[in-house]
């Protein structure tokens, strides 16, 4: 069994509770334990960095230090949490002054951080640790007939972490194929959903969501798979506002990749948190070919 320190982040407590549930259900199938950090704090999303960079890194470092204390690498399911944790870890590794400054503050919580751990996004675990071949082996309910748009969004791939492919990644498509579904051609898959602009610049963000929905629908997707709670909420919960604003008629289900993977692994929809959507996920089930046709 492989074990990771798990940093769910604020969104997964309620708004994205279905991501939390399905992450735990699906990792269990592959004998991976996600041990939630005790008493983790908010990573600050993008907003700490608007106010003070050192404060932002300190707050992120508190979570990293707790993972290090357990001797575990850190996994974050939210793209913004992941990006913050990854870069704070990276900067502290390479900057002794920053490390000293931050450890001076961490003392107050009896913690210290030596940047001796690695940080991963949840989708990294499925793409690399588990890998498409093992996923295929464990799939007992292949999602035949379903066309899934792989929505990477921004911060999983950007900024560039380790010189990896940022313009044409394929790992999401590979995971979808391993589920037995068909990855949709989705040219906007790396385009931003607007992020927190949904609160601070509503019309611009709604238009960004519209472009994504339009591209997925035009290319025949039955559902968009996401790997980030903010992307999911923008695409799903604001879909009706997009329809109001632009006179469109989108009814496109938006699910976490772990929910779709869970279905392929034969886990019940209820255990995967399916049923709390504002845009019904029913079309996903009606597109699936009956089992005997597989």
């Amino acid at each position, binding site marked *: 069994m492989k074990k990771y320190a798990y940093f769910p982040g*604020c969104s997964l*407590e*309620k*708004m*994205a*509770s279905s991501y939390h549930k399905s992450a735990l259900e699906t990792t269990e199938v592959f004998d991976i334990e996600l041990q939630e950090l005790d*008493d*983790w*704090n*908010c990573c*600050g*999303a*993008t*907003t*700490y*960095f*608007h*106010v*003070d*960079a*050192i*404060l932002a*890194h*300190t*707050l992120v470092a*508190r979570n990293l230090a707790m993972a290090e204390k357990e001797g575990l690498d850190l996994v974050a399911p939210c793209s913004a949490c992941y990006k913050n944790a990854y870069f704070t870890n990276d*900067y502290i590794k390479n*900057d002794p002054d*920053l490390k000293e*400054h931050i450890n001076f*503050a*961490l003392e*107050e*919580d009896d913690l210290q951080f030596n940047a001796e751990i690695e940080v991963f996004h949840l989708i990294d675990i499925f793409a690399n640790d588990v890998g498409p071949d093992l996923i295929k082996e464990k799939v007992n309910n292949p999602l035949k007939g379903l066309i899934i748009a792989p929505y990477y969004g*921004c*911060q999983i791939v*950007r*900024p560039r972490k380790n010189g990896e492919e940022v*313009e044409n990644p394929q790992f999401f498509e590979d995971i979808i194929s391993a589920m037995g579904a068909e990855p949709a051609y989705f040219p906007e898959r*790396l*385009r*931003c959903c*607007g*992020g*927190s*602009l949904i*609160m*601070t*610049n509503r*019309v611009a*963000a709604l238009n*960004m969501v519209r*472009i994504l929905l339009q591209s997925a629908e035009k290319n025949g997707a039955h559902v968009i798979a996401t790997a980030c709670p903010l992307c999911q909420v923008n695409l799903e*919960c*604001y879909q*009706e*506002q997009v329809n*109001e604003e632009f006179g469109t008629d989108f009814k496109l289900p938006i699910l976490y990749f772990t929910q779709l993977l869970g279905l392929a692994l034969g886990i019940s929809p209820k255990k995967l948190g399916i049923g*709390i959507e*504002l845009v019904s996920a029913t079309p996903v089930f009606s597109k699936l070919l009956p089992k005997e046709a597989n």
Partner: protein
Amino acid sequence: MALKPSFSDEISNLLYAAHGNPINACIQCGTCSGTCPVANYMDQTPRRLIGMINADLKEDVLDCNTYWFCASCYHCTVRCPADIDIAGVMYAVKRYSIWNKTYSEDLVGPKFSEAFVKTIVRTGRSYEPILAPTYMFHFGPKDFFHEAVTASKMMLKGRIPVLPPRIKRLENFKNMIRKIIPLGESS
């Protein structure tokens, strides 16, 4: 006489931990503006903003909405042929405008950021219902209504917490923050 740093130097100095090249490496090619998904809504495109910073047009830079409309998608950063962390530049100007209170009054971004940080400093976790008033009262009646409908629907599905979450070791957490910046609180 002490040398006063230029505006472009000040912004460069705020680019802490941005590992790209300094902004004066910009060749004004416009790849950032062509890539930016929000450029159509900005007063100035990212390319122009960088040109304006390099030309020390401080007031014009701070007056425009460009940097507060950046969604942090980092597409410009990964494509910049001069290897400038452009999203990092936007963060630097945001910080400058918050510290100096020089942002334009009708922007929601800075108020939202400050409210967000205050919530976290107080409880250790973010909580949407406390944040909502910072931006919702800025909306017109129609948008306010739509936002309220979306929020109620999410609440009915159990997707918005009723009570604000807080971390257990909150006192330690606050003391840790005090070692970095003064909290400006009396309680």
